[in-house]
């Protein structure tokens, strides 16, 4: 079985989160005869790019994912999403509307969902009740208990002798929506000052991404109560730092976003032979025997050279990791989950690009014969649309529609424009898309002229099912658009469906304010 992880970019494919999850899973999968590889979403452009058996969308929150998932479905591929962050349950947060819309739309297109924690499983079961969900924990790296015991013992002895602790905080330092990362570190910084007692001293290394080290971020760190040094995160520096430090500090706050996180940081720290001081929300409870929740307990144990992580406790670590983070187990769960899915749904034959409803005109059949493929995807481009979604939809033989809000200069198939003088909506059909219309509508077109590289025909207003309110967006500003979107987009979608009844339309809108919080797909 060939499994392809679809990522947002080349850079993301090499990020820490991706490496922790998929590289380690790939090692386990190989043993089972499966192959896991990753590609950036932008590289999936043509039919020949879709050669894998299973596609897994990871953090690709764009309309391009709708187009690809739709097309993969037509080609009989198994498609799923992998969710390891909760951007979906904060219903009162308008900024995250686009994520909620994305999940709901993808929910209608996928065969399965994966997630990293049981809490996220609960979220997905609630939001996508029809989609089977499997929990695949973030797997640990290759693990040798003797090596861990050796490092833990050496660090503990050194700490006991010097009574000085090198403490490490590592990870992504920021998030565009939630106060996490270095904000958690600083919020729980008071705990670190408790390592500076009873004749002990401590220093901190902050290993994080550059984006988090803005003047604000650096200014926050000044509040830390012990001496600290900041380094930019790289995979190599993380390995070196884990080797050098005695203790990893893992503060977690109690917001939903943080409570959904996986155990991977604690697992990474323990496997490197570091003691772990985990404070705040008890996210790492399943590893509780191996961690500290209070600095005093850590100091007391180190003073006796008997910390939680030591040679004698290796059996506990081994047992916990095999239950919680075994890469082979993770790959196995994944494979058997997929196997179960395919046997359960063998009766549902993929459409392989053939429309299943009865509206197909002979002209579309002609297109199918002429080009070799045909897709019933339609993308409606909003104010901030995704050019890849537009390109892919057209590449796969579908339609790209310009909504009133879209300012892009693409070669659209259908345009909804305003007449500047009257404020009425003008519906223009490119000659390439005329064949998609039903015969009676085709007869009501009048020539319009050229826009960019295409020749357009105008559809007479009397032939549209819904009338657009006049003047709503004459001289449009963004504020007027936001006000108008709620009424205008449903009318536009309904019109598209009426004109092209065999096409399934998706809305491409990156603006949180304009994203329609409603089912856009048919």
């Amino acid at each position, binding site marked *: 079985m060939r499994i392809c992880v679809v990522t947002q970019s080349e850079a993301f494919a090499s990020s820490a989160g991706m490496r922790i999850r998929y590289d380690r899973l790939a090692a386990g999968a190989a043993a089972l005869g499966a192959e896991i590889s990753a590609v950036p979403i932008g590289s999936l452009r043509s039919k020949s790019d879709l050669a894998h058996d299973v596609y897994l969308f990871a953090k690709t929150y764009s309309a391009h994912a709708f187009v690809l998932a739709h097309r993969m479905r037509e080609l009989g591929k198994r498609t799923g999403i992998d969710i390891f962050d909760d951007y979906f349950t904060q219903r009162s947060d308008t900024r995250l509307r686009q994520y909620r819309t994305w999940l709901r739309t993808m929910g209608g297109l996928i065969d399965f969902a994966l997630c990293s924690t049981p809490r996220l499983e609960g979220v997905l079961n609630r939001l996508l009740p029809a989609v089977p969900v499997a929990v695949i924990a973030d797997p640990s790296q290759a693990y040798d208990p003797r090596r861990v015991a050796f490092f833990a013992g050496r660090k503990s002895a050194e700490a006991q002798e010097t009574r000085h602790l090198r403490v490490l905080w590592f990870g992504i330092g920021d998030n565009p929506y939630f106060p996490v990362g270095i904000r958690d570190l600083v919020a729980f910084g008071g705990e670190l000052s408790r390592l500076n007692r009873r004749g002990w001293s401590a220093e901190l290394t902050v290993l994080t991404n550059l984006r988090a*080290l803005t003047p604000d971020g650096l200014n926050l760190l000044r509040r830390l109560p012990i001496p600290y040094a900041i380094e*930019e995160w790289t995979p190599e520096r993380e390995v070196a730092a884990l080797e050098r430090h005695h203790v990893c500090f893992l503060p977690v706050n109690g917001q939903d976003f943080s409570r959904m996180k996986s155990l991977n940081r604690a697992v990474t720290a323990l496997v490197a032979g570091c003691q772990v001081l985990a404070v705040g929300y008890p996210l790492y409870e399943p590893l509780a025997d191996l961690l500290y929740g209070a600095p005093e307990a850590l100091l007391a144990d180190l003073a006796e050279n008997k910390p939680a992580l030591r040679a004698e406790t290796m059996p506990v670590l081994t047992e916990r990791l095999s239950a919680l983070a075994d890469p082979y187990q993770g790959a196995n769960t994944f494979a058997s989950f997929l196997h179960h899915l395919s046997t359960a749904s063998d009766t549902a034959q993929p459409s392989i690009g053939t429309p299943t409803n009865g509206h197909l005109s002979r002209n579309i059949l002609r297109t199918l014969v002429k080009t070799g493929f045909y897709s019933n995807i339609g993308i409606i481009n909003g104010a901030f649309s995704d050019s890849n979604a537009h390109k892919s939809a057209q590449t796969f033989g579908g339609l790209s529609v310009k909504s009133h809000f879209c300012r892009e200069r693409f070669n659209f198939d259908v345009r909804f424009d305003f007449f500047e003088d009257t404020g009425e909506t003008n519906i223009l059909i490119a000659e390439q898309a005329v064949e998609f219309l039903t015969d009676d509508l085709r007869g009501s077109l009048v020539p319009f002229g050229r826009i960019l590289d295409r020749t357009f025909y105008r559809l007479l207003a009397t032939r549209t099912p819904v009338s657009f309110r006049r003047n709503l967006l004459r001289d449009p500003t963004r504020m007027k658009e936001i006000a108008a979107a709620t009424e205008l987009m449903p009318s536009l979608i309904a019109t598209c469906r009426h004109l092209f009844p065999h096409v399934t339309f998706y809305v491409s809108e990156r603006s949180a304010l304009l994203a329609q919080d409603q089912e856009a797909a048919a």
Partner: protein
Amino acid sequence: MNRTIAFIVDLVQDVNVLRPLLGLSRTLPDAEVRVLASTKFYERDGTGLWRRELEEICGGLDLPVATFASEFEAVRALQGRRGVLVSASESTVPGHATAHNLFRAAPPGFVKVTLQHGFECVGFLHNAAHDAAHGRRIGFAADVVCGWFEPAFLRSLAPSERSKLYVAGPPLLLEPGPRPVRDAAPEAPEHRLEGLVCENLHSVRLGGADLKALFLDAFEKFADEATRIGGTVWLRPHPGGRYTDRSGVRLPANIRKSDAPIYKEDLGRFQFAISAPSSVLFDLVLAGVPVALWQDPEGQIDCSNYPGLPIVSGPDDWFEFAGQAILNPEPLRATQEQFYKQLGIHDDVRNRYAQLLNSFN
């Protein structure tokens, strides 16, 4: 651990302000001196003049210059150290963002010092145009705000910042040798005409095309006539603004340009100088050169921070002032001496800066 005295160089004019302090800090015991230049400094320095100056100054003091592109890069260069971090261009004004952000981000072991960097200076002493452009509530991320004059004369220091004030004096006075105001007074009138005209047309003080045109018109007419009768007129563009260099203004053919850093310019050779309100007037007063302020005929430009100094507008005024400066400079110098005295500048500027830089261990 030794203490560190670190200087941020971001605007090209920083070099001029920091130069005397770099020299002073090198003489202080047990101090590691570091110079951090922003990449923007090199970008702003179109001609490369100030890069060469910085290299020459630091080379002479055996100081390496480190470059930083982001706040984090500067923080990385400073972390693990403690001491004093000094900037000659730090405030909440957008043009001072580099040093301001770095001050906010600096490792906690550093005390941050903002220097008054000019006579009329944002956050310290405003021209009316500064108020209009930046408002009156200028803040500093610095812990210490180091001024030139007594608080009474620093009328634009926001109440919220007053408790940070430390009065040291103009760094210019750290330069070796006394620079009394009247040192350059010649014994007898000279039969030559050599004057300096300074332009700061980029400044908010000369905002609006009208003021620029009025200044340039008066300058051109004066320079034309003065050179025709055998005089020499030097034009000195503001080192950071360089308006006449950059805007393509056509200048009279016979004028000469003064582009060297002010500390390399022999100011004593000028018999008089004319400028719109600008810090260069203060340098010239210190050098004993009779100065006049240029003001537009309608008096829009605020000259109130220079009480007692003569004001000129049209070319006729310029000639009248030049004649007075050449034939009878003494009364002009006496007025300048009065002006200088009422600023309340301390006699022990060197000692005060040394104390400031020595204070934080």
